[in-house]
């Protein structure tokens, strides 16, 4: 990759990372959220960038512990916008972003607790009138208010995008893993709390939330009128006959047929 973060000029680049409190999938303990930590890592890997971390939410002792996880990555302070529990954090975040006016806002793709709908970055972008891109894998360069980034696609592929700043970008688990959180810096770092009026999320209060039920496994139903067909479908090993068989052809003809299929499927580049 021609990526060289050191040489590209990020001079004066102001990056805000929105961080949330995660939840360990097995122990259910509060921790730094994985995708958010990757977003912080990505921000830290940009040289010359001033990185601000913003968290909006309640601050129980659990939450504080989790937020200190981000401080342990070598960050001086996290801006903590205090919200009552069950509040809609989007208005508070919009205010905070208007105040700090960053060029780039990084977030995780979806939260590990609560609704986890992954809508926050889109809502923020719409409210601020900024473009939003998802699945950021790497920031290649930032020049004259335009960022060239790589977007992660399924199957390990990447797409290069150019986006006009300021912009919101989400990071998912295809981004580089976050560095470990060190204990000392985590203790020393500061949680700069700030109060802000909270807007209750009324719709969410009506929902009924329960632990996830196991989803039923889909049955293979064979719809056929005759018993013979149903038996054949149930007992079939490998169903032959559907494919095309080329025997007694020269290697060139065979290669031509394979080539046609590969081209038809669009896997040749």
């Amino acid at each position, binding site marked *: 990759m021609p990526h060289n973060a050191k040489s590209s000029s990020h001079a004066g680049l102001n990056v805000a990372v929105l961080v949330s409190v995660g*939840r360990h*999938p097995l122990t259910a303990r509060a921790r730094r959220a994985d995708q958010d930590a990757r977003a912080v890592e990505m921000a830290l890997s940009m040289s010359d960038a001033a990185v601000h971390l913003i968290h909006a939410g309640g601050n129980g002792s659990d939450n504080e512990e989790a937020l200190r996880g981000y401080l342990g990555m070598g960050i001086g302070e996290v801006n903590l916008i205090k919200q009552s529990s069950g509040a809609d954090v989007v208005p508070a975040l919009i205010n905070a972003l208007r105040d700090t006016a960053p060029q780039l806002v990084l977030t995780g793709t979806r*939260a*590990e*607790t*609560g*609704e*986890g*709908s*992954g*809508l926050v970055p*889109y*809502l923020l972008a*719409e409210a601020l009138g900024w*473009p*939003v891109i*998802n*699945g950021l894998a790497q920031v290649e360069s930032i020049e004259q208010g335009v960022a060239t980034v790589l977007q992660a696609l399924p*199957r*390990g*592929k*990447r*797409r*290069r*995008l*150019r*986006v*006009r700043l300021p*912009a919101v970008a989400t990071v*998912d688990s295809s981004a580089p893993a976050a560095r470990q959180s060190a204990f000392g810096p985590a203790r020393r770092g500061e949680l700069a709390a700030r109060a802000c009026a909270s807007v209750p999320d009324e*719709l969410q209060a009506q929902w*009924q*939330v*329960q*632990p*996830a*039920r196991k*989803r039923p496994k889909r049955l293979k139903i064979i*719809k056929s*009128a005759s018993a013979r067909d149903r038996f054949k479908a149930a007992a079939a090993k*490998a*169903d032959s006959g559907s*494919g*095309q*068989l*080329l*025997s007694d*052809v020269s*290697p*060139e003809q*065979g*290669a031509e047929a*394979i*080539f046609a*299929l*590969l081209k038809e*499927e*669009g*896997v*040749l580049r």
Partner: protein
Amino acid sequence: MNDIVRRDPRKEWIARNRLHPEHLEVLAEMGGGDLHSEWIGPSGLTRRNPHAVGFIGPNGIKRIDRSGAQQAATQPGSRQAQPKDTRRRVEIETPAFLVAVVPVLPGGRLSSHDRDLLGLARQLADADPERPGAVLAIVFGAHKETVFDEAGVDRLLELQGDAFSGYLPETRIAALQSVERELAPRHWLLPDSPLGGGELGRRLAVRLGERPATQVWQIEADAASETGWRCTARGAAGTSDIIRHLPRVVLALAECAEPVSETRHAAQPVELAQALPDVLGRIEDMGEVAVDPASVSLSEAEFILSAGNGVKDWDGFHHAAQVLGATEGASRVAVDDGFMPRDRQVGATGTWVSARVYVAVGISGAIQHLQGIQSCDKVVAINLDEGCDMAKRADLSVIGDAGEILAALVTRIERYREQQQENRDAA
């Protein structure tokens, strides 16, 4: 055509009993076709036509019934009823409302996720038989799908144009907004897939000012809700279920409903009255970046060239993989013999792959190997043995020596690359 065969057990019994006085008459009557297998020649000798004996059985093999009475038809296939299309045709002339679905069409075809979603849309549309709704599918750009009718689409809106070929979410959202203005669907359904549907759906919901339900996996009728439906959605990274009223915009997971299988629909094309707006996008697509296929993990790879015991020329194989731009895989034998690293093994004890195209070179198709390629779309077999299990699984099997065919394929591809290069130079 009447397929029912009337049998007369008494006549069959007579036909089997060569000593029965009516044996010959019954035989003539039952075999009574145009082909006579036995007759008395002019000199009084009994003549037999061996080719007229017997019939073609259901497996295409000639059977001879020693009793002489042929129970099955002489002509192959006349008794094998062609599978008839028994699906009900459904046409909805004046729908009470529309349910819009935006399928992702990976590779230009409906994925199983898209089909599930269309099944969900049918549930919403067909709930009230008195006032049926219509399912509107909105398709961007060129595609290869031909069976929208079988998947349950009543109305098909194809938005063509260069603008939809690349990654331009802003243009697509503007187009969907025009659909909203003109057709005002009651529901919007999108697949909640990592890219494509999930992203587009969130953008759309935010633009329409609707709060969507994400990761929905079940819907049920609920009179207490204002939309008449209730949905169950996954929340908190899949660890909780949220039960809520069904909103207008729904992002649903795979297997959220059964795909349509019993009906065929009109898939009637519709068009927008107004031209699509021009959007000045702030996101510019610079195209896909070439990634080294060798660095892609096997389970993620989209195009795999896999080698088995039939590969003799390993340098040729690696070269072919490089020219094709394919990720390399291997059968267990190739790995055990030390030709390929262990992390390249495909199958039950190796990696379960999900490639779109899987080319098996000299692999016999043992069940342990076939298990690993269950979810591959297209399988190509190159093998010497046309009866092997891999050839049965494959969509295309080429019988011949692996080395020669791979070499021919490499030449063909190199020629294609040169042509492309020339075209590019000319342009």
